[in-house]
């Protein structure tokens, strides 16, 4: 039976569980940190020697942990790219900007179990020789920022943070930095600029890869809240045990934010790939199905930036047969395992693991207009294709949803989006273009019908077309 597997959220929702140190310690808190700093150096079978820090980094790599922020990149590999020879300090940044529409998982941790994040961060700092770390937290989460600061003080008082942590000789500080309300501050290089006190203009890569030229032009690791929490569990369980959770190449657990037209929206922690999209939506342990009398129309599977999936779609997925051979298998939408690789093969992504369900009462045109307005508002405006294209799409969609549409608007929108994706400084370009490209591609009739209806209305003596409609921001 598909069910939740609570690793990160094991304690958070227990009755009486509080975000303070005492409660955390009662539940085994900071034992992983103790274990980490006591890690012995080791010699590998091939004779290579590893320092204690390298052992932990190796564990994270072997665990198969993939970033929970959006791109699903291997955390261990990311850590291995860090320039450790520059002589410059190495910084760790926790990305707690959680702003992707539909996503509400990091805030569970931040509000209910801040010490888990701090423990994960101190271990990560220890493993990467970071003496200074930052938590960049979304401005709209003032309470979590306060809780974090209290928790950081408690950790300092207990010797889990600050000078000579647990007598190991390792010094580490963590500061909380509150954002000011811009989605782009979640993009790691925009975040770094913002942390430096500047406008959150994402940096060009090359040359500004955070692992080499990050915060203050020093090597920097940026990881999501949930990713850093997993580090604690990898240390506790050992990489081999941890990697048994989930499915191969999609290890561990993941918190899914489920919203939209389901009976029981909420956050559910699952073993990655062990639960399907259909189960997440319909199973009594999860979404408990669509509202009565409704049928499924579409699923946005990984936060608002991911490409929409249409009810009834069937995908060709690579599957390893019993003989070990890879074959292509037909997998219907609802049978897609909820993991990184399956969704990628289905032409979309698991992104921030936020599922937005849309039933047959929803207008795809209206929904896309809403999403596009968000992206037009949040584009930082640094690079031409996104700056001009994001608002252009939003204006076109505003027109289409306000009685001034044209049949050709489907092509028009696709033309704009096509000229954004892959041509911008940061992945926001894709984030803005993908909803448009996928909505229009998969629901073209709906867009054309809407435009055609407006044209017919105008042709039959309605008010003349005026192309001046534009959304207000």
């Amino acid at each position, binding site marked *: 039976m598909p069910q939740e597997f609570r690793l990160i959220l094991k304690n958070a929702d227990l009755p009486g569980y509080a975000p303070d140190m005492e409660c955390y310690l009662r539940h085994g808190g900071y034992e992983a940190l103790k274990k980490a700093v006591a890690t012995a150096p080791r010699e590998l079978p091939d004779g290579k020697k590893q320092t204690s820090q390298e052992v932990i980094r190796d564990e994270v790599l072997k665990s198969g942990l993939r970033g929970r922020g959006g791109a699903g990149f291997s955390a261990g590999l990311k850590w291995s790219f860090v320039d450790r020879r520059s002589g410059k300090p190495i910084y760790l940044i926790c990305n707690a900007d959680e702003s992707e529409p539909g996503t509400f998982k990091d805030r569970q941790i931040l509000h209910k179990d801040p010490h888990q994040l701090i423990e994960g961060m101190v271990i990560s700092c220890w493993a990467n020789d970071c003496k200074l770390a930052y938590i960049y937290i979304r401005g709209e989460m003032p309470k979590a920022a306060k809780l974090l600061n209290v928790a950081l003080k408690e950790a300092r008082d207990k010797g889990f943070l600050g000078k000579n942590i647990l007598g190991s000789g390792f010094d580490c500080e963590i500061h909380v930095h509150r954002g000011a309300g811009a989605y782009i501050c979640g993009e790691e290089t925009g975040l770094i600029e913002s942390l430096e006190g500047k406008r959150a203009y994402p940096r*060009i890569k090359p*040359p500004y890869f955070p692992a080499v030229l990050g915060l203050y032009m020093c090597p920097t690791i940026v990881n999501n809240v949930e990713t850093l929490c997993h580090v604690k569990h990898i240390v506790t369980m050992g990489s081999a045990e941890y990697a048994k959770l989930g499915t191969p190449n999609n290890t561990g657990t993941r918190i899914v934010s489920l919203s939209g037209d389901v009976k029981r929206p909420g956050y559910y922690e699952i073993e990655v790939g062990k639960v399907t999209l259909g189960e997440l939506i319909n199973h009594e342990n999860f979404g408990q199905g669509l509202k009565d009398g409704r049928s499924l129309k579409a699923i946005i599977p990984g936060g608002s930036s991911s490409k929409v999936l249409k009810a009834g779609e069937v995908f060709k997925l690579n599957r390893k047969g019993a003989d070990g051979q890879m074959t292509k298998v037909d997998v219907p939408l609802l049978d897609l395992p909820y993991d990184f690789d399956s969704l990628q093969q289905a032409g979309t992504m698991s992104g921030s693991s936020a599922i937005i369900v849309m039933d047959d009462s929803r207008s795809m045109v209206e929904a896309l207009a809403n999403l596009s307005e968000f992206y037009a508002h949040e584009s930082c405006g640094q690079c031409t294709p996104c700056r001009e294209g*994001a608002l252009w799409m939003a*204006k076109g969609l505003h027109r289409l949803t306000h009685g001034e549409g044209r049949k050709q608007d489907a092509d028009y929108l696709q033309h704009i989006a096509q000229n954004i994706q892959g041509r911008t400084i940061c992945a926001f370009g894709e984030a803005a273009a993908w909803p448009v490209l996928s909505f229009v591609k998969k629901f073209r009739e709906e867009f054309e019908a809407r435009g055609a209806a407006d044209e017919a209305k105008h042709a039959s003596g309605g008010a003349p077309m005026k192309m001046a409609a534009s959304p207000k921001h």
Partner: protein
Amino acid sequence: MSNAATTEAKPAAPAPPPVEKIKIKVDGREVEVPKMLPNWQGKLEATTMLQAVQIAGGEVPHYCYHPKLPVAGNCRMCLVEFGTPMMGPDRKPVFNEDGSPKIAKSVLPYEPSTPRGAIACATPISPGMEIYPNSSATKQMREAVLESLLINHPLDCPICDQAGECKLQEYSVQHGQAGSNFVEAKVHKPKAVDLGPRIVLDDERCVLCTRCIRFTKDIAGDDALGIVNRGSYNTIAAFPGAKFDNNYTLNTVDLCPVGALTSKDFRFQMRVWFLKETKSLCTSCGTGCNTVIGSREGKVYRYEPRQNDAVNSTWMCDSGRLNYKWIGREDRLQDVLVRGQKSTWASALKEISEKLSKAASGSVAVIASARQTTEELYLLKKLATKLGALTDSVARMGEADKLLVAADKNPNSNGARLTGIAGAELGSAISKIADGIHSGAIKTLVVFGDDVTKAGISADLLAKLETLIVSDILPNATTKAAHYVLPGCAHAEKRGTFVNVKGRLQKFTKAVEPKGDARPEWEFLHELVHNVTGQNGFISIEGLFNQMAKEVPGFAGIEWAQVDDQGVNTIS
């Protein structure tokens, strides 16, 4: 193309060998390019695709990139399709049947049928890379960027000051598509924003390339400009309540690829295509920034900096740039005057020559100006030597800054030193000259280009002289006291050289004709020297220069023809 360092600048000259080279292909043609090239600060950095294409003789259109500014990579105009040698699973290169390396074209990872461009301005080249600056995919990307830049652009070229120098106009013609698909309402932004005392901004014309911001912050060292709002509403602005007012603001007008930033001084004065461009130098301090004079029908309309990496990079200061109006002043000296009466060059020079020829040795003194050309100073020195005259020139000191401005406000103090008209310290002999006049030993004074009443020779002293011969451009207390007034020329009205504070010898050429009877000083000095010394000199500036360079040790025989637009270092 314009000579001015306006929107474009040449990349800094490559560093000396040994240069490691790598082979790449540009549009199918193999080229070898240096692995490293100087960046905006002159430091060696991995060669970019844009630089490589330039070396291959091509051009990648761009807005935000400027060789003298940190790379921003924001306009995306320079996106180009490219490929790199394909690697097998064993990390070894894969070859075609003919033995050539297989090239993997860059594609979108999530849509492998679509090419993915890279920004040429910031992407380093690698061995075997192929760049396709003219492929259909590259052209499509370029068209799309232009279309995006134009959707909210006002298209008011007919009334825009940048018309004729505008990169948006230029690229739209070269790389744009015929029509736009855009049918929405345009974004409106502030027009005619008074950014500072010298700059007006039209935010609707701005393409948000941030060149102005980067120059102001990273070159001028003034964090004065920024962007407010978000997305399509992004707007260049100065801090609220603050003015954009440093001594380098006008460089942003040159840098602005469109007509967003305009100079209050120049705007609406003249259509740029009517302007004649003349290579010249700024004369407002000893740095000697290279300039282009824009003139029309004898009138100077503007100065712009001209690139010289040994002197001023591509910049100049506002005060130097705006210091041109005196050239066209109404009260310019235009007549040869003999004791206050209008005369002719022939009769005045005859009288002066006779007087000087008869003067007893040591009874004449010469105060030259370090605003004169090297050739003129040389001629004056020749004259002075013959006459056994004391010589000097007037020092003019002020404040220096960190970027360009020198404390020495004369353009040619080193010329005065090298020719020997002045000693190491300009003006140190003036008190001796004053004493000589006072004692009556000095009876004749020759003054060029300076009001000596402000430099230690009072009007009372001048009144004691038997003969005061003055050449200048504008009237002053000294010209008023003169027995002979010889109207001279602004540098814009003649040719010659200056030696800047670092000892660099630089040429300038003539942009406009002098007014009235005014003549270049070297011409009439040449006549005087001939008359007084009996020596025959050269009547061309080239010949005169070469003669000087042979005679004056500091110039070590440099030939005029060797001195190019960028000047040469003198031995000093």
